[in-house]
């Protein structure tokens, strides 16, 4: 379970999210947290630890066990002027709420000609690598990114987690906020006073490691994996530029294309299945925007077209350092 960090400056991602939520609750009395087990328990990942105690049961609400109900009531609260922040317990449990998300949350602002914004944040701990049973390791982000009206974003580190959760809550658009659960316990120095500025606008991708020979685009849990791969590649004399996308809808194609125009090669990495995953859209766009610059096709490294497998074999499903480097090899073999 997450370590709160003893020094103010060192945060796990879990603690950073907790601190970000706390700030949002303090800053705006309209912020309401809703979810299963987020009160006394503090959520199964303890992201909301202590918040119900400090802000009360009206602001941090343990909801009946029904995701559609949670998101649907969040819509109603938003109509009444609240800013609901919904926690979905695990990725695989968001689907009962799919109708409310796709037909209501995503579309209501447009339907109302801009009169009724839907400032709802839907937090989803996502992805695998934690040895869990079925439905606890999925990466459903493409469903949401394909849905107009939703923003989709994913932090990869404590600083972004702290800043982006606050930005997401402040944003009048609905945001599906994909939290890389296996990175919840990753630590980093965060200075709350400057974090928002340091993180920058949430719509911007970030070059987290500059390089020359190929660009690696990734987000959420895969950023650390790709950084490790880039470090390993350096030993082999290959210089990889790693881009943390941060925003999955919209995509910051400008930043990514600028990188690819320099390196001439792109590998996209995510845990979600490759088929119609984010990598498909990125490959389609970059193949068009960098048509004369690409020296190799865009290589996609990701999950397979199969249900997420039992945990004893998940390491073969998930892209790891070796698979990323294999993708880089393929990109460089052209």
């Amino acid at each position, binding site marked *: 379970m997450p370590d709160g960090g003893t020094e103010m400056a060192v945060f796990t991602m879990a603690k950073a999210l907790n601190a970000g939520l706390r700030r949002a609750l303090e800053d705006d009395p309209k912020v*309401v947290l809703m979810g299963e087990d987020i009160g006394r328990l503090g959520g199964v990942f303890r992201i909301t630890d202590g918040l119900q105690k400090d802000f009360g049961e*009206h602001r941090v609400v343990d*909801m*009946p066990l*029904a995701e*559609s*109900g949670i*998101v*649907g*009531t*969040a*819509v*109603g*609260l*938003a*109509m*009444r*002027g*609240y800013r*609901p922040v919904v926690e979905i317990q695990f990725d695989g449990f968001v689907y*009962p709420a799919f*109708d*409310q998300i796709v*037909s*209501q949350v995503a*579309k*209501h*602002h*447009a*339907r*109302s*000609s*801009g*009169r*009724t*914004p839907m400032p709802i944040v839907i937090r989803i701990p996502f992805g695998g690598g934690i040895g869990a049973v079925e439905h606890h390791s999925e990466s459903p982000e493409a469903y949401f990114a394909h849905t*107009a*009206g939703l*923003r989709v974003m994913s932090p990869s580190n404590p600083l972004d987690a702290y800043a982006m959760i606050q930005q997401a809550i402040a*944003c*009048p*658009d609905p945001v599906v906020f994909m939290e890389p659960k296996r990175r919840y316990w990753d630590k980093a120095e965060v200075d709350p006073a400057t974090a928002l500025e340091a993180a920058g606008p949430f*719509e911007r991708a970030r070059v987290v490691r500059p390089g020359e020979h190929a660009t690696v685009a990734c987000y959420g849990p895969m950023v650390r994996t790709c950084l490790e791969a880039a470090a390993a590649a350096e030993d082999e004399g290959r210089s990889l530029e790693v881009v943390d996308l941060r925003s999955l*809808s*919209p*995509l*910051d*194609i*400008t930043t990514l294309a600028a990188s690819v125009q320099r390196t001439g090669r792109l590998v996209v990495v995510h845990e979600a299945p490759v088929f119609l995953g984010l990598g498909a859209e990125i490959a389609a766009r970059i193949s068009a925007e960098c048509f004369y610059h690409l020296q190799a096709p865009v290589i996609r490294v990701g999950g397979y077209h199969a249900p997420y497998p039992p945990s004893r074999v998940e390491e073969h499903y998930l892209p790891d350092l070796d698979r990323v480097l294999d993708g880089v090899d393929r990109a460089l073999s052209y």
Partner: protein
Amino acid sequence: MTADGGPNLVQLLTPEGERVQHPDYDIELSAEELRALYRDLVLVRRVDVEATALQRQGELGLWAQLLGQEAAQVGAGRAVQPDDFVFPTYREHGIAWTRGVAPLQLLKLFRGVTNGGWDPHEHNFALYTIVIGDQALHAVGYGMGIQRDGTDDAVLVCFGDGATSQGDVNEAFVFASVFNAPVVFFCQNNQWAISEPLERQTRIPLYRRAAGFGFPGVRVDGNDVLAVLAVTRAALASAREGNGPTLVEAFTYRMGAHTTSDDPTRYRIAADVEQWKLKDPIERVKVYLARNGFADHTFFEEVETEAEALAVKLRDDCRALPDPEPISIFDNVYATQNSLVESERTGLRDYLASFSDTAHAGRGH
């Protein structure tokens, strides 16, 4: 299921226009108030008839008729206070009327010039919801907002008999009862969900569903505007007083087709409809008003004239509604600047501009 609503039906005005008493519900209305209700009923029906005609003339893509449900809607709508909030389905033209939404606003949606139509906050009347049952949860959430605001407003949410089968509606029952939310679930049981009779949704009267969730349910004669007004008022008062939700089942009948796209002759017999014609929601009020001297011939004629004028104006205004600009497709997809939308908007703008030079709008046609 009994066609007459069974022994527990709350009724204050019989189909024959007789005022009857009920042990639990009563209502005192002045002649003026009674006349106002009658006027509502007639105008609402006239709007509905006109809209149906406009659809036949090709001015609307679709219309969902309320014929037969005027009393249920006017009764419920007039029970609601200005600061209360109403969540309609797609058939709530009568309630819309009571919330001050101009009929033309409703037509916009069915004409296809908007997916919305009015300002929900101006009227405290949400946009029509087409996905069956979704709005039930919105209502509960809105009610939770009221609880947090500490005001004594209440919420009325409409849905049909068919909607009671949806998970979302039942989740709304759970959430409303657990949070004791100030919500009145107003179910217009018009006996049909398109072609499916009530028996496809339940084997017991719908009002009894509420007991399974721990809150009261009442079945009211949905063709009796007085009873609906009284029952809904009481339910709203109960919500306001902190007693949580109530389910009101307005027992009525869909006299028309499901929508103008529907052909009810395929699935129901004319005799059933004839039987319900005898329970017309307007006729009984007219008889009651006339018989008791609450209104005279002139009044009835005035209302007819007003209805006619309303219809004429609606027709003209409808025909004059402009089509949206193509580029409006991108309006309000987000509340903030969005690079994807911007690039697609620019793409469409440029594409459209590429035709503006040429005489013809396209190459293929």
